[in-house]
């Protein structure tokens, strides 16, 4: 019991660290999960745009602005050059449309004036450009063939009103699952950091020269001692996993309580176990606590960046993903991505998922073997 108690005494000492990574996870998912609610009806994506109108807000100009406001999120930003520039840089707005003075007059005179725009050139900007271009095309046609401004406006609006019917066929609620996926992907970083950091610190504390000597001369059998350490480590990993599952339950609510959600949690448990074996391996490499914190930072951050915990995997370059195959986190996140796409869940469909989990377990076994080899060699040296 003494060993067991000491183990959790040290865990308690590092509770700040656990708290820090948990808060990071909450912050990260909090920002991403709070966006739009579940939806099985089609809602159009609306690009964020800014209109800077120097013309009088009447007639054709007014109609253009009205149309843009209906089809995009028109942002209100203080008309200061710096604020506008910043908003464009950070993609708060994707498209800026500058309507010049005398725009309406020029149009009615049949001049087809230039419109200045600024664009971020991404998906949303393309969308905004489509919306603007479509309007101007229609306007050009009617201006050429009609004289009366009111008639032109009426016809523009009539032609633009034609809408096709659109239906979503998928029954599963993709936005909710997307959120769950985000949560578990980022959790890989927090889980791994919390498990490796703490367990490495604890194991190195036990290996401190003086303490190690005292343990060796004590009446306790070293086999028993090691067994207790192993059990305590497993218990700690299990507690962390429970903590993260509960946190997921609070953030994701009943989405987590489906078969899909449970597989997500099982995957996380396998991953947590794998992290434990990594921690044991690292702690056999060195007894220096400062070195441990360096190694752990590189291992956990590196895997998170390269395997898609921070950046969605579809955005990662192909060669990075190929390289990531040798990292356990890659297999964990692949399972999450597969789970996200599943329409129906049956034994045949989850086969690749089980295979990924098996690879994680094989990784764990590999780490244990490496650990044994290193400790054997170290013992010989001593």
């Amino acid at each position, binding site marked *: 019991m003494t060993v067991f108690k000491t183990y959790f005494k040290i865990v308690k000492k590092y509770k700040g660290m656990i708290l820090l990574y948990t808060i990071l996870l909450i912050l990260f998912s909090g920002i991403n999960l709070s966006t739009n609610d579940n939806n099985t009806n089609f809602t*159009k994506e609306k690009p964020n745009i800014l209109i800077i109108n120097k013309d009088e807000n009447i007639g054709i100009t007014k109609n253009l602005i009205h149309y843009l406001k209906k089809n995009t999120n028109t942002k209100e930003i203080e008309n200061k050059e710096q604020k506008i520039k910043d908003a464009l840089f950070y993609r708060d707005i994707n498209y800026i449309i500058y309507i010049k003075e005398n725009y309406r007059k020029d149009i009615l005179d049949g001049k087809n004036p230039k419109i200045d725009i600024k664009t971020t050139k991404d998906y949303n900007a393309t969308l905004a450009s489509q919306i603007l271009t479509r309007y101007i095309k229609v306007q050009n046609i009617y201006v050429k063939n009609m004289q009366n401004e009111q008639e032109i406006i009426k016809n523009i609006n009539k032609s633009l009103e034609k809408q096709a019917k659109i239906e979503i066929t998928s029954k599963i609620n993709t936005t909710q699952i997307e959120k769950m996926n985000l949560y578990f992907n980022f959790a890989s970083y927090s889980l791994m950091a919390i498990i490796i950091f703490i367990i490495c610190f604890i194991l190195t504390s036990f290996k401190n020269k003086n303490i190690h000597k005292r343990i060796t001369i004590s009446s306790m059998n070293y086999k028993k001692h090691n067994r207790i350490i192993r059990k305590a480590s497993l218990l700690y990993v299990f507690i962390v996993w429970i903590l993260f599952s509960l946190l997921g339950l609070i953030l994701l609510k009943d989405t987590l309580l489906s078969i899909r959600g449970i597989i997500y949690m099982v995957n996380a448990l396998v991953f947590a176990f794998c992290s434990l074996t990594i921690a044991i391996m690292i702690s056999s490499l060195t007894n220096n606590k400062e070195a441990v914190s360096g190694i752990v930072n590189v291992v956990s951050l590196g895997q998170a960046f390269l395997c898609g915990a921070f950046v969605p995997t579809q955005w990662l370059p192909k060669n990075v993903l190929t390289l990531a195959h040798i990292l356990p986190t890659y297999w964990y996140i692949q399972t999450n991505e597969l789970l996200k796409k599943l329409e129906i869940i049956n034994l045949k469909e989850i086969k690749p998922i089980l295979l990924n989990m098996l690879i994680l377990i094989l990784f764990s076994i590999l780490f244990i073997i490496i650990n044994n080899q290193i400790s054997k060699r170290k013992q010989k040296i001593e």
Partner: protein
Amino acid sequence: MFSHNFKYTLKILLKNKILLFWTFAFPILLGTFFHMAFSNIENSEKLKIIKIAIINNENYQKEELFKNTFTHLSDKKNKDRLFSVTYTNIEKAKKLLEEKKITGYLIFEKENIKIKVNENGINETILKNIVDEINCNQDIIKTLLNKNIHYQKIQNIITQNEVKLNNITSKNLSYTMIEYYTLIAMTCLYGGILSMFITNYKLANTSSVGKRTSISPIHKLKMLLASLLASYIVQIIGIAILFMYTIFVLKVNYSSPIPYIILLALLGSLAGLSLGISIATLIKKDENTKTGILISITMLGCFLSGMMGITMKYIIDKNIPILNKINPANMITDGFYSLYYYDTLNRYVLNIVSLLLFSICMILLSYKGLRRQKYDSI
């Protein structure tokens, strides 16, 4: 005495592997991770070809305008190609959609057109917009035919329609650059570890070497200045290596005259150095706690200036500007950002002045804590 002290501090610092890891190797590793993870982000946000299916039934064959437009938009020779279209029957289309091989499919019924998609998204919206646009053109043709304009003439009007958009966006708009700027900021502030280590080393209440040097008859200010100069130089070497690495290996674009960048890096390091000394002198705790505090302050500052998510910097700048005005990590990041994106130097100068003020404040604070220290017993 000055040179003696300087030389030995340099030796002590360069032999401490842990310190060197955090100030030299860690930023380079982190920069490499950034590069691997973010190098593709901005490209993948550009539009890719959208895969769709069209149910090839009688109704579709009647729709000349749709047929022509989709042939045009899926033509491989077309520069503005948007779609890759599969013409098929309804069962196959359903299957393709289920397997997520296509974004959606179109069914032409007698009176209207239906679009079936899997989810909400950009591609789906673009598909809908195109269908709407063709619908709209059909309506235009109908309206103009009613006005007795010849069909061929209407066709000409529609095809010769020119939209004059004048793109005036400035060139430098790559927001992933912010990540690398925060990395430089982090390294500048992490450099504080060096000055903190050295200050601790010289303080009587934190190390035995400190006790010994304290009773030696040399001028304390001179001694401390020599040591700090050594730590500053080590710090600058670290920053210089990182700069070389980001410029030549990671191809980061600083896009401004080198003297401005060097000035910013020098002042940024000075801010890190002064932060390190002030934590070492003002906080009366053991060394681990001090390191913890320095790293927490640095990481929090980098978080607020966009390291873990670039939008965070914008959110803070927009809503709580004061928080980023006093944040040294943001002063450095924002300095690089203004050099990269702005045409004028006003914002850059503001950041330079803030960094100077920050460093002076920190040094004055620690000077007050350092001078005339006396101990009856330690």
